[in-house]
């Protein structure tokens, strides 16, 4: 039971990474992307292939997973980011499915539908992080989430974060204010994709095997749900959203009713939750925080009613 709760927390962490990326793309920049599963898969397979075939260590594969996902983010971003709303969603959805199909069919590299097994465990300073001993693995995941959270929170408050929000609120006005929209959109997309790639690496060394079946469209939808549930544009809220969604996903097993409640139950529940949220709390559980509130340097600026 306790072990099972740890498993939920580990999956919360892995999905929270993806959700943080999704939040940068959707919550901050306002692009409805549905391909976090694709980047997740790219990161997963990068780690799986490099560790099993070329004997790399997990730590060496991490930057590769992140950069490869970011690269694909840019490649898909450049042509599709001119699309808006629903059209972008459809284009990115297509990308996610293409990734899964390629993994499914490129037998020589990815092992096809069988996937890749016997992935080595993570070692650090001679210490092996065994996924069956969940506490150590959980600590590693939490460190990843905290570091990413810190970096994203910083990004959100920075000059770039402000530009992204401006693009979300009004593209034409942002353009007229001198913001290079395409550049920022591609950056947001690449950064969001790269953390999904890192999440994929973690997933690989947790399950110690990869199969294309784990990277379905449902994963992208789940990640989007986490962002919407927690609160778009708020990184802390998104992590909470990830936890709640994972808790619901594993709820039948957690209370020992998996024999009674069919697994499809969770999809019904997600649907219901989204409908309820959209009606009563469209801004998410926590909602959006305005960064400028309480800014420390609200010191009085001495100016008369003149233009400087």
């Amino acid at each position, binding site marked *: 039971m306790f072990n099972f709760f740890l498993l939920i927390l580990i999956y919360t962490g892995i999905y929270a990474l993806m959700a943080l990326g999704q939040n940068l793309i959707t919550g901050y920049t306002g692009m409805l992307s549905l391909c976090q599963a694709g980047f997740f898969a790219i990161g997963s397979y990068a780690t799986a292939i490099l560790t099993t075939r070329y004997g790399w260590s997990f730590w060496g594969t991490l930057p590769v997973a992140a950069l490869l996902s970011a690269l694909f983010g840019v490649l898909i971003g450049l042509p599709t980011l001119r699309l808006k709303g629903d059209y972008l969603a459809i284009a990115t959805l297509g990308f996610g499915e293409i990734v899964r199909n390629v993994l499914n069919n490129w037998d020589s590299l990815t092992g096809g539908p069988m996937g890749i097994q016997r992935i080595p465990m993570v070692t650090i300073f001679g210490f092996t992080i065994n996924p069956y001993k969940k506490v150590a693995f959980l600590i590693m995941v939490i460190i990843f989430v905290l570091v990413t959270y810190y970096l994203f929170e*910083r990004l959100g408050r920075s000059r770039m974060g402000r530009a992204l929000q401006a693009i979300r609120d009004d593209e034409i*006005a942002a353009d*007229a204010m001198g913001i290079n929209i395409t550049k920022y959109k591609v950056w947001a997309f690449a950064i969001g994709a790269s953390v999904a790639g890192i999440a994929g690496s973690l997933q690989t060394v947790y399950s110690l095997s990869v199969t294309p079946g784990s990277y379905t469209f449902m994963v992208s939808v789940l990640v989007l749900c986490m962002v919407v549930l927690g609160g778009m544009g708020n990184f802390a809220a998104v992590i909470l959203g990830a936890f709640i969604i994972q808790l619901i996903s594993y709820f039948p097993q957690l209370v020992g009713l998996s024999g009674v409640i069919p697994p499809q139950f969770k999809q019904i529940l997600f649907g219901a939750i989204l409908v309820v949220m959209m009606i009563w709390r469209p801004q998410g559980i926590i909602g959006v925080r305005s960064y400028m509130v309480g800014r420390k340097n609200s010191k009085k600026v001495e100016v008369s*009613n003149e233009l400087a």
Partner: protein
Amino acid sequence: MNLLETENLTRTYGGVIAVNDVSFVAEKGLITGLIGPNGAGKTTLFNNMTGLDLPTKGKVYFEGKDITGWNSHNISRLGISRTFQNIRLFSDMSVVENVMIGRHYMTGNKDHKTGRLKNMLNSYFRMNEEEDIMFENAIKLLKFFGIANLEQELARNLPYGHQRELEIARALASEPKVLFLDEPAAGMNPQETEHLMATIRKIRDTGVSVVLIEHDMKLVMNICDNITVLNYGQMIAQGTPHEIKNNSLVIEAYLGKDED
């Protein structure tokens, strides 16, 4: 050399000619009005000059430089700033952030002495004073418009009149050479319009040239130094307010032809 001019600018949408062969001129340091009945092509001309739309034919020059076909964000970096007919604020951002966005392109990687990467890291970790300067500058502008007390309010929560003012403040934040105002007095009551007129004059007096589209004739005739009149996409008159008031073509466009 004129500050801004178009040369035989034409914009067609399929068979509809929105702007037809217009050579518009805005001089430095003046308030230039652009008037005409609804559908005359005023906003289309604006959009073509600010890069939101591409002319079908003709050229746009700014300070003698050909800027035809430039991106909107590159044009705005030259010192052309604008507001919109239907207010376009960043509605889920605070008032002060809206104004800070106006200075966005002036910050960041501009200072090559410190190096691009260092500057990026500085802005990322907020170790530089750039943000503080941006913030103070934004507050100054908000004070100029008398809405500094609303700095933390979300832009969407502002009353209409303040939203109009905020949009002008945001446009001024980039320290433009020329400010385009698309119907700034739309929806304002007479007192608010009066106040706006004073504000526009003050802006001009700080050295910013102004080009404005407006239907409120009292405002246009009072504050414009030069007026250009469009009708059905054609430029039918250009001159001082006095000349425009007595121009028979203009009277005809607005009031119709005398049937006698």
